[in-house]
């Protein structure tokens, strides 16, 4: 028999309502003050250190972490509310989001006490930006083919090689990177990689921009030449990083950011259609609403399971697979449904602008953070096929 897929109808608890109201009020103030424009698609990708510090001051970074590290010991479901409201408002979270979602939790688990004391409170206050160093010119989805080396030296390690497609590296204060400390073994090709915390100001690190097809600069190549990383910046087991990766995946893959990245085009469509859409538009819109509602219910269900201490890795991968494909197709669906609107229809110009941006970024959605093919491999394994 197949592993049983579980998606219980979990609801966000009542304490989330007050928080949601507070978050909406904050975002409304920020957008009124000109920090970002909810209708301006690009704004969601902007870097704003000042904004992240204000978010930190509200207590909305590191929400679930222990107080002694600057966290707020709130629930994973409360964090869910903050994440989805920020995403839907198109607020610029890039400075703190990676640290909040995945780097911080890794530090919490594997960093020595004094490193936690030093870094985690600064993540929570919105001061620190993290970059993930995984892909290399010769290894993308095949993570365990990474070659960039960390060689043991007095008091630490010397890193040589390069990482690529590193979003935010040019803004980042720290990288959590995967480096080769031993060759793979015959029995286990995943053996030999170690996770390191790297201060991006370390001598011997060069960050070279790679411009994207959007015209924006997000990607970089990060080149290491004898960059020194001290022993206490090793995260977890030497040569054993492969054991550490899986449990974080469900967190990383099932969140609302995995289906809301192009949400603004759907709002734009509703605005452009007006209160009395024709039958074709109404039907098309209704399907999109049903699909979005379904994705959110799946995502909240996974969040509830994580909250309850379960590890729904397959369910999390399914949310990302379905969610990213949906958000990728959304601009095309919206374009179809808006096709017969009069050119002078209300908000048509804004929608056209939003569509142009969403259409150009769409290809990345099913690549970043685990490609469709890799996710489906994980799902197939969960089904007992491999």
């Amino acid at each position, binding site marked *: 028999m197949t592993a049983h*897929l579980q*998606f*219980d109808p979990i609801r966000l608890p009542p304490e989330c309502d007050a928080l949601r109201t507070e978050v909406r009020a904050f975002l409304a103030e920020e957008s009124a003050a000109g920090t970002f424009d909810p209708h301006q698609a690009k704004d969601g990708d902007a870097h704003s250190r000042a904004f992240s510090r204000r978010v930190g001051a509200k207590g909305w970074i590191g929400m679930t972490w222990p107080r002694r590290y600057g966290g707020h010991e709130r629930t994973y479901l409360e964090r869910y509310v903050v994440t989805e409201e920020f995403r839907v408002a198109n607020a610029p979270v890039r400075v703190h989001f990676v640290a909040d979602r995945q780097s911080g939790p890794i530090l919490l688990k594997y960093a020595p006490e004094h490193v936690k004391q030093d870094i985690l409170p600064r993540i929570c206050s919105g001061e620190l930006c993290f970059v993930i160093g995984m892909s290399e010119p010769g290894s993308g989805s095949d993570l365990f083919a990474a070659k960039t080396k960390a060689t043991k030296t007095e008091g630490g390690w010397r890193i040589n090689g390069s990482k690529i497609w590193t979003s935010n590296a040019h803004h980042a204060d720290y990288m959590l990177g995967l480096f080769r400390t031993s060759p793979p073994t015959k029995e286990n090709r995943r053996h030999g990689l170690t996770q390191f915390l790297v201060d991006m100001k370390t001598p011997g690190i060069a960050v070279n921009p790679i411009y994207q097809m959007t015209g924006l600069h997000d990607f970089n190549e990060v080149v290491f030449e004898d960059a020194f990383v001290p022993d206490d910046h090793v995260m977890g087991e030497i040569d054993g990083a492969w054991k550490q990766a899986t449990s974080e995946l469900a967190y990383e893959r099932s969140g609302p950011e995995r289906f809301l990245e192009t949400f603004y085009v759907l709002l734009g469509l509703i605005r452009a259609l007006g*209160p009395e859409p024709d039958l074709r538009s109404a039907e098309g*819109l209704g*399907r999109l609403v049903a*699909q979005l509602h379904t994705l959110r219910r799946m995502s909240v269900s996974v969040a*509830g399971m994580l909250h309850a201490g379960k590890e729904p890795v397959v369910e999390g991968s399914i949310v990302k697979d379905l969610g990213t494909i949906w958000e990728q197709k959304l601009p095309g669906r919206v374009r179809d449904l808006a096709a017969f609107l009069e050119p002078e229809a209300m908000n048509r110009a804004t929608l056209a602008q939003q569509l142009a941006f969403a259409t150009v970024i769409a290809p990345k959605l099913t690549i970043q953070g685990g490609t469709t093919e890799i996710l489906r491999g994980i799902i*197939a394994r969960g089904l007992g096929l491999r």
Partner: protein
Amino acid sequence: MSLVAGEGSNIVAEAAERILADLADPQSINQTANGAWKAPLWDALSNAGLPLAWVPENLGGSGAGLADGFAVLGVAGRFALAVPLAETLAAGWLLARAGLEAPATPMTVAPVRPHDRITLDAGGTLSGRAIGIPFAREAQQIAVLAYRGSEPIIALVETKDCRLADGRNLAGDETNVVTFDGVRPPRSGSAPRHFEQRSLLLMGSAIRSVETAGALETVLSLSVAYANERVAFERPIGKFQAVQQNLARLAGEVAAALAVSSSAADTLAQAGVADDAALLEAASAKIRTAEAAAEGSAIAHQVFGAIGFTKEHILHRFTLRMLSWRDDFGNESYWAAELGRHVARRGADDFWPLVASR
């Protein structure tokens, strides 16, 4: 937090599971030429109080909660059950809205299509026609939602008093056009406040979506088991990435159907059929499970190849039934248009708050 269809957590659903495993095994039923299996199955279901689970004890039912009934329907879907259990549950529920006693016989409900309208005249006589009534031929009574002017009335009619046209759905189950002209219902009563034909359609949509999710669960486990067994090119076909990717997509459709249907069932169980939440949840469930039925059925048949296209194989019991269920209680296009209009009327600023309220 609430559990609706959490496996092993529901005694009523476990009782249903045992009965269906004994008396409604898809393999055995598929090999039987006649309907002789139906009577003993119905007796066992009735003895367990399942068909009238949604009827309070004082109206002749077993008075289980909506959540229990939905859990039973999930099990029924997993067996692609071909007796009017869902329909009798719905009929009992409808009658209870008007405080009417339910008979202890198989029933069905009408109407199940949004544009059918049955009317009750001042003299107490029904008229109108309802298309696609599931199992009308096998039901002794039909619970009807009719309108006397603009007032919704719930009535119980004897099937033998109605005119039935022959018909079957894709899966071969009796599905009839029922004409009510001149029928005088032995029992009738006013529907509660805010209860309209749409309320019945939303409830029916939640029912069909839960059954569809159940059927999809079985389709997935059958498909995975087959892919692991069937050898081609010297290995099980489940070892081929192309097949794995398709089965992963099928799992995604199953997951979507489970999530949205259990959410809708939970919503109706907690808050009834009257508000915006019910529309968003039940309409979305009908739309998305119908999409999953089409997509999931296509993938499963592709995995099974020719053997899955035979009468002898049980796959069609699940795929054809869930494809048929799409048409009951408003199809996915109907609900999509309704939901789209609803969202458009509320406007863009109220859209996310609606989604986030669930």
